[in-house]
């Protein structure tokens, strides 16, 4: 036998592990769903799912929790990508949760639908009977995430108990749950933001245009640059101006900040991320700045 002429690269190792996770979930849990936001992490999830299950269709649908305040570029991309894949997309709408009285809209200039997403997500999980949901969270994102397992269990109320996590040994995942419980699965747990971009580059994956530098109307608040759109309430002293920005995450427009950037191509984004001195969440997510333990509090109540 000729010796192998190649070795697995770091990214290939991560990829192989993530594919393994996808297949374990499909085999052990009856009704999984993949949460697809149109963001870079969930774009990587889709490619990994293709690698895990093609040439067959995915053994689960995709779901987007739509806040109604998404970047139009992202929604357009989402629908196009789903059509290309030929998979089924469920859209769970925060607006509907509000209309049904399940959630109450926040008011004032700092209003955001970010918290309301949790209600919509839990309702959709219950309505469709999903017992596992793939998400694109990574452990490098935030301190509370560093301790979260790849299989993260939620009780009937969708709550995460950081003190009562199952030990995860070797690559043996315990996916057993009781009725009513569900598990959030994070196949990208061991990836960093840079890994995600390098993978997108290596696989030449399309991402929504807002990830690249573009000019847009913004206003500055709390040291971040927010997109201005019809109906945005400004606080006294704030003005709208044009700036060349790009986004590091795609969330709700009301709480996702852009960064000044000239990175217009994938390669330029990779270079920029490699040199960045601020975490993705710290730079772009207002919701995590609220308090020292903001993320942890939201996770305990069912947030992703």
């Amino acid at each position, binding site marked *: 036998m000729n010796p192998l002429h190649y070795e697995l690269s770091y990214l290939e190792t991560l990829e192989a592990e993530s594919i393994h996770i996808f297949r374990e979930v499909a085999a052990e849990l009856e009704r999984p769903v993949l949460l697809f936001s149109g963001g870079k992490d969930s774009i990587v999830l889709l490619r990994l799912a293709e690698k895990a299950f093609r040439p067959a269709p995915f053994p689960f649908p995709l779901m987007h929790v739509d806040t109604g305040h998404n970047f139009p570029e992202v929604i357009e991309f989402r629908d196009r990508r789903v059509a290309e894949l030929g998979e089924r997309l469920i859209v769970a709408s925060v607006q509907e949760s509000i209309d049904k009285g399940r959630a109450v809209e926040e008011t004032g200039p700092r209003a955001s639908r970010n918290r309301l997403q949790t209600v919509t997500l839990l309702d959709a999980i219950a309505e469709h009977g999903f017992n596992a949901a793939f998400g694109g969270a990574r452990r490098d994102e935030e301190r509370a995430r560093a*301790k979260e397992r790849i299989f993260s269990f939620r009780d009937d109320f969708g709550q995460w108990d950081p003190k009562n996590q199952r*030990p995860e040994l070797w690559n043996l995942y315990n996916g057993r749950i009781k009725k009513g419980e569900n598990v959030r699965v994070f196949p990208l747990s061991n990836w960093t933001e840079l890994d995600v971009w390098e993978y997108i580059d290596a696989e030449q994956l399309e991402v929504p245009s807002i990830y690249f530098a573009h000019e847009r109307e913004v206003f500055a608040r709390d040291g971040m640059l927010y997109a201005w759109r019809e109906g945005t309430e400004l606080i006294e002293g704030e003005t709208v101006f044009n700036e060349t920005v790009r986004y590091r995450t795609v969330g709700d427009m009301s709480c996702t900040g852009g960064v000044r950037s000239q990175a217009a191509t994938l390669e330029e984004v990779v270079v920029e991320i490699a040199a960045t001195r601020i975490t993705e969440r710290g730079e772009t997510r207002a919701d995590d700045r609220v308090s*020292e333990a903001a993320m942890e509090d939201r996770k305990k109540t069912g947030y992703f």
Partner: protein
Amino acid sequence: MTLDLLRFTTAGSVDDGKSTLIGRLLYDTKQVFEDQLEHVALASERRGGSGALDLALLTDGLRAEREQGITIDVAYRYFATPKRRFIIADCPGHQQYTRNMVTGASTADLSVILLDARKGVLEQSKRHAFISALLGIPHVVVAVNKMDLVDYSQARFDELVLEFAEFAAKLDSGAELTYIPMSALEGDNVVDRSEHMPWYDDPAHHPHAPTLLEFLEGVEVAYDHPYDTPARFPVQWVIRPATSADYRGYAGQLASGALRKGEEVVVLPGGGRTKIRAIDTYDGELEEAMAPMSLTLLLEDELDVSRGELICRPGEAPTVARELEADICWLSERPLRAGSRYVIKHTSRSASAVVDELRDCIDVHTLERAGAPAELALNDIGRVRLRTSAPLSFDPYASNRRTGSFILIDEASNETVGAGLVAPDGA
């Protein structure tokens, strides 16, 4: 992409300085982002203290921990230098220590054991050395911390090295041991070389004298060479697209070794033989594949293979049996007793398992195995004999970490209650 990956685990007793050490490692390798620093500065201030940056706060994750001021669960950290990428499994040295250490060690290639230079080799340090050995970790770094509090004394360092080496010799694990004197607080020998310990650099005394980071960057990870290890392919999932009737793909991750198109293989436990028709991936077919790739095998004959079965070469098959002997690390408050029944998950196969016999329990101080215990309690490690409802295809843990390991799950609570390592004389 030529960057290499090192997974390592860190453990120490409470207050040995583990959080400070990891914080120092991240800080001095410039892996700490500005907003994280800002956060640590704020939190340091809020706690009072000298106003100096408390690097331990960088790695202190959850609110419950902050309230109690201790680390309670394994946390994973990521950092990279131009030479390598690192994943740290940070294992707290508190209560549930064995549970955490075993979890962290199960995926590690190296472990860093912290000692407080003033306190010496405590029970916890021994326990961690033992668990590293049990879990087959090939490299151990003994980080002798807080050297600043013993006047950077060479004599004290040598004393601790001797003491630790004596215990390690009893473990007889074959692991490579490296001792590094350091001060996590002051940053000596973590990333930057210490100016306080010229004796450590003295070539006559320590010919290599690496800092911790230098060592982590340079250590050779002895990945099993694919051709030295028998191929093991547990089937995870069967791919049968409705659109192409003759595509029946067996998907999984190659647990060890390498496989080649055209090779003869056997499917266990059934024993059916066939050849590999194709090795398929999303990116196209391969002539050969090696661990740890995820791939899909197409076979020449229509064997009805399902999840949980194992594909390997006929001449080098693992043991196939319904009884096995293994060391179990017990992770649950509810003890393990003879006669108890659990779900066993081994590779991609799950079955029922009954504990037939408790053979012994290991005393972590003396490393002696005491015979026939009545039970294994939380954090105990002992040898048991299991019987399973379906045949398993396994290897001794010492020769294959993937096919030699399993977990036990409580049928009622669904908790993961035990970590199992198949004994050398397995069946």
